[in-house]
């Protein structure tokens, strides 16, 4: 059963404990200055954004059919059975196609390193493999971020909406976005008001390029026969012309 995260922005108090726990887990520095940076970056893989009097936490969505995994030319990114999308820095050649392709603008790059890596949240794959919840879920004092089975969390989210219909916008972000994500959002207001991208397609994106890529064997084989055939015909014609020329 794949794991997921449910983030309920109506509960979030913006204490940024999740940011600190995440930095600690990755071994990144964390201080007031970094806390004030309200965007994810190579040294801050989750960030709490302020939208008026509301908060919204950003992190990798660990999509069910991840775009980044499909576009990586060296297979450095992997969708695990458990749910997290993991990254193998030893394979990465730094083409940054994952960053270009990600519909949520999640992957960050170590721009100022001489030997840079891509960085993103991997839903604490190492912890989850040991049966533990993510560092951010563990530390959240109000239960705004919780980890669990995806189906269970969807049921939980629906229950919360049903129990307090006035407190919620009534939809779950991440249910259908790009075919579904491992991070699910609840909000009191429409999602674009807390900075989430609502324009993303509802279908998985890898399909857009695969539709063309899967034609490759057909194009190559048909092309080879066609070009070979044309050469055979035109060459024959030239040969005949040459012979006739000699005859005269």
């Amino acid at each position: 059963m794949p794991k997921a995260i449910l983030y309920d922005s109506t509960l979030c108090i913006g204490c940024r404990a999740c940011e600190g726990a995440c930095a600690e887990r990755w071994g990144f520095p964390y201080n007031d200055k970094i806390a004030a940076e309200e965007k994810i970056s190579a040294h801050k893989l989750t960030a709490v954004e302020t939208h008026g009097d509301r908060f919204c936490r950003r992190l990798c969505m660990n999509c069910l059919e991840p775009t980044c995994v499909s576009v990586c030319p060296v297979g450095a990114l992997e969708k695990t059975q458990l749910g997290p999308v993991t990254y193998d820095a030893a394979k990465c050649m730094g083409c940054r196609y994952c960053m270009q392709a990600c519909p949520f603008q999640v992957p960050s790059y170590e721009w100022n390193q001489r030997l840079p890596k891509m960085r993103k949240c991997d839903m604490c794959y190492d912890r989850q493999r040991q049966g533990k919840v993510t560092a951010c879920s563990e530390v959240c004092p109000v239960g705004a971020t919780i980890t669990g089975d995806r189906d269970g969390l969807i049921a939980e989210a629906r229950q919360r909406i049903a129990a307090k219909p006035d407190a919620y916008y009534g939809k779950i972000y991440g249910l259908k976005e790009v075919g579904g994500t491992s991070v699910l959002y609840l909000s009191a207001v429409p999602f674009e008001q807390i900075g989430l991208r609502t324009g993303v397609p509802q279908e998985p994106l890898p399909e857009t390029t695969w539709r063309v890529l899967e034609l490759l064997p057909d194009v190559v084989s048909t092309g080879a026969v066609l070009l070979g055939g044309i050469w055979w015909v035109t060459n024959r014609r030239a040969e005949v012309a040459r012979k006739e020329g000699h005859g005269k």
Partner: protein
Amino acid sequence: MKGKLPKITVWRVIFAAIMLCGLYATWLRVFYGLGGSTNLSDQFPWGLWIAFDVMGGVGLAAGAFTLVATVHIFNIEKYKPVLRPAILTAFLGYILVTVGLLYDLGRPDRLWHPLVMWNPHSVMFEVAWCVTLYSTVLFLEFIPMVFERFGWHKPMGWIHRISVPLMILGVLLSTLHQSSLGTLFLIVPEKLYPLWYSPILPLLFFVSAIGVGLAMTIFESWHSTREFGRALELPLLASLARVLAVVMSVYLWIRFLDLAHRHAFGLLRQNREETWLFLLEIALMAVPTVLLYQARIRMRPGALYACAVMVVFGFVANRLNVGITGLKAASGAAYFPRWSEIAITLSIVAAGFAIFRVVAHYFPVFEAASHEAETGRTEQKEAEPLSVG
């Protein structure tokens, strides 16, 4: 030759200045990373080096496969004089694209990774294999010029034996590579501005590459006549220009149909950067297309050259628009290349011109052409574009 010296010196000074700036920018790139040498950011991860050096460079090298197919597969032999320069352009082009990639990749030392670590679902994986294989094919198509220069007949025979499958392979790989650069952007339907995002991007990239390949052939023929004092094979280029006009017409018509079917024309009413750069791109391609339908334009070297240059610029504008302009709005970030990005790009272009000159000087690149020019084509009538052998 001596009389031209002052003019050449001016160009050499410019060349040296560009190369020095490029050298300093290279130092920044190596020691301060992409952050210290580019204006790229997490929101805008691809810039000038991908949009121009790679996407533009590969397209500008498209003359080789177009002419190889024309001369050796369709057997239209009269275009042979412009075949070798096109192959040299493409071979240098692919080497320089690889150099551009070495600058752009975060880990250039891992350029070889896609050959070992496979992901057939990735367009970038296909691109990596196309670059590698087609560079090899271009090397084998170019090497006979070296063999000929030194009179090595034996290896010449080996190449000759595999030449037909080699050329077919080259055309197939080019078809895949040119189109796959368009396929790269199919993954960003919600990010790329609708004037450029289209499900038929691969087809559009392929057709426009054929056009720019022909334009580049006219472009380099014109330059080589000035540099090497050869007679311009004007009738031949004029008939090539006729083909170019048709290819660009087909391209523009597909573009029009595509925009119409996607109901994207309404966007042109908005006064935005995208609108103006789109119109510039279309104008740079449409104007020469219309002009080239007129015989008096085709038969005037200056006008013919100007039209070819416009097509090249229009093509480059298209690649820059797809790779940069069209992605800006959705990224939420401002991007304009830093001086060091521009310096490296200019250095690569300048190096391309310089190496082409040197190679064309020492190897029989234009020789086949000059023989035929000597046989007195005094009447200067346009050659028929499609007369078969």
